[in-house]
């Protein structure tokens, strides 16, 4: 488990990150092409199409939680597949290869059961992208969970992405940095950790997630914390 934050002496170092999108040159017009590119792209491209939109330019109230589902629904008019892909939970997979396998299986099943899906062709291709993440230290540090509600409203959306979203890729069992840090304090903050675990990071903007995390911390730690 790598947190990129050693939590030595219970110190939580706030990091920030910025993402930049890179074209891979891969384009799919049909479901078979989509499937084959998903099989071959770098894991970072899979990561990008699940999470990258949160930090890059994009609309927060998207109907689907990943670009593959969205494209199948909107551009290929594959409503069934769009729905099937939309329930894929990237956090539930041990790594991106595992996630890739599940997506491939869903597409393969659809290709096998629906002959028409073999012939669908979109006029707008799926553009495979990947992203590069630049992570930097903000110099901000906290040592007590009670400081969380103080610092959270000041965090950039990049910090929220790094500690609450990107961490799910770095840590096992879909953990985030806040919860991992709280674990170090023993039983006292289990309830807070549990409440943070149920925040659904999809279908929200990072600003909204920041607000939700702050509210949970305020509620569990008491308004007196600030």
């Amino acid at each position, binding site marked *: 488990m790598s947190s*990129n934050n050693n939590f030595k002496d219970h110190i939580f170092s706030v990091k*920030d990150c*910025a*993402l*930049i*999108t*890179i*074209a891979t*040159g891969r*384009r799919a017009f049909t479901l078979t092409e989509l499937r084959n590119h998903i099989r071959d792209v*770098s894991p*970072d491209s899979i990561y990008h199409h699940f999470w990258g939109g949160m930090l890059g*330019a*994009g*609309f*927060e*109230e998207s109907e689907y939680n990943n670009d593959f589902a969205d494209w199948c629904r909107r551009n290929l008019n594959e409503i069934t597949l769009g729905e099937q892909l939309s329930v894929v939970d990237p956090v539930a997979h041990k790594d991106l290869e595992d996630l890739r396998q599940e997506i491939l299986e869903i597409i393969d099943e659809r290709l096998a059961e629906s002959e028409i899906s073999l012939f669908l062709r979109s006029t*707008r*291709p799926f*553009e495979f*992208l*990947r*992203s*590069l*993440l*630049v*992570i*930097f*230290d*903000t110099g901000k540090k906290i040592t007590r969970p009670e400081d969380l509600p103080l610092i959270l409203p*000041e*965090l*950039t*959306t*990049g910090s929220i992405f790094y500690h609450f979203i990107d961490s799910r890729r770095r840590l096992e069992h879909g953990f985030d940095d806040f919860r991992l840090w709280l674990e170090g304090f023993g039983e006292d903050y289990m309830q807070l950790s549990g409440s943070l675990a149920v925040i659904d990071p999809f279908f929200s*903007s990072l*600003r909204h997630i920041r607000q939700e995390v702050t509210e949970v911390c305020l509620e569990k730690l008491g308004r007196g914390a600030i």
Partner: protein
Amino acid sequence: MSGLLEEYAKVAGQDVVFQLQQLANHLKGKKVVHVNSTRVGGGVAEILEKLVPLSNELGLDTSWEVISGADDFYHCTKAMHNALQGYSAPIAQNLLDAYEQTNRDNAEKLRPQLEDADFVFIHDPQPAPLLKLCPERRGAWVWRCHIDASRPYRPVWRYLRKHVSDYDASIFSLPNFSQDLPHPQYIIPPSIDPLSDKNIDLPEEDVEKVKKEFGIDPNRPMILQVSRFDRFKDPVGVIESYRLSRKFNPDLQLVLAGGSASDDPEGEAVLEEVRTAAGDDPDIKVLLLPPDAHKTINALQRAADIVIQKSVKEGFGLTVTEGLWKGKPVIGGNTGGIILQVISYHTGFLVNTPQGAALRIRYLLRRRNLMQEMGIKAKEFVRENYLLTRQLREYLTLMVSLQHKAEYRIELI
């Protein structure tokens, strides 16, 4: 915090500026040069005008150089621009010779500065050959293509590709604009400057003054399209939509505002078509505005109930971004970058035909509350995604990534 950064913090948010400062800390003192071919006019100059001082305030040593040439050079680069957008016309050899000679002449003047820079951003095809003319360059060179090059005229692209393939990276505005090049192609959408005359908040009296100036009735609904008089922007289709909507909204007014067409022979013809289609309808205003009428456009966008951008082909569509920033729902053509910005039922509606646009005009005019909600959402959407500060953050991120030459992840600890 310096004055300019503070101004941006007020509009974009303190956290956004804080992040820029954090990123810029890793690039302090780096020499950055932007090169394009015009100091005034056009989207590139508009962005650089603010991007350069803002970068300097963040501690980078940024300068902006402009190359210049004679008529043949500009004829050539105009033809290149059209060819990248898909217009099939070869460019005469004498024009290509002028293009290369102009770059050689400019390289004589700029070489020491460019070779010494840590990062060089070359904007669009005009200065692209400078890279090969600076053999002692020590920094990273990036070609920034602002043009929709999704379906270029191949012979011209093949020629230009020779000049851009040796760059360390290129930047395109949208993924489908990217081309087959042997270096990383970054995707950075353009942005609007919230502090420019075109986008800054205006007092209500300025908006009222513009309404009065152009005979727009303040008590009746008005729809607006701001764009060049160009067939790809489908101004005649907008008039058709207006007429279809008028049956249900007899009070409706339409304003079509565009720049002068004097440098574009086709523009004159389209303007004539538009005037003919408008006929003697007093509720259609066809406005030919000077290139510096930024505040007028700003006021018109604020005066409008709905902003239309019914393009049939579009690059990114910054007029859409501007409309959204004014808190207006936008009815936009289902093409190019408009698709990224107009989210049906959230920030406006995507349409494919004049009939589709008419339907959505009727729909919105009947649902004033929804229009208001969409307007609020539209402005926030632009604040989050399409302000100059986001573009600058991505430029800084790109520079950091080029400095570290990492593939996926860089930790600056």
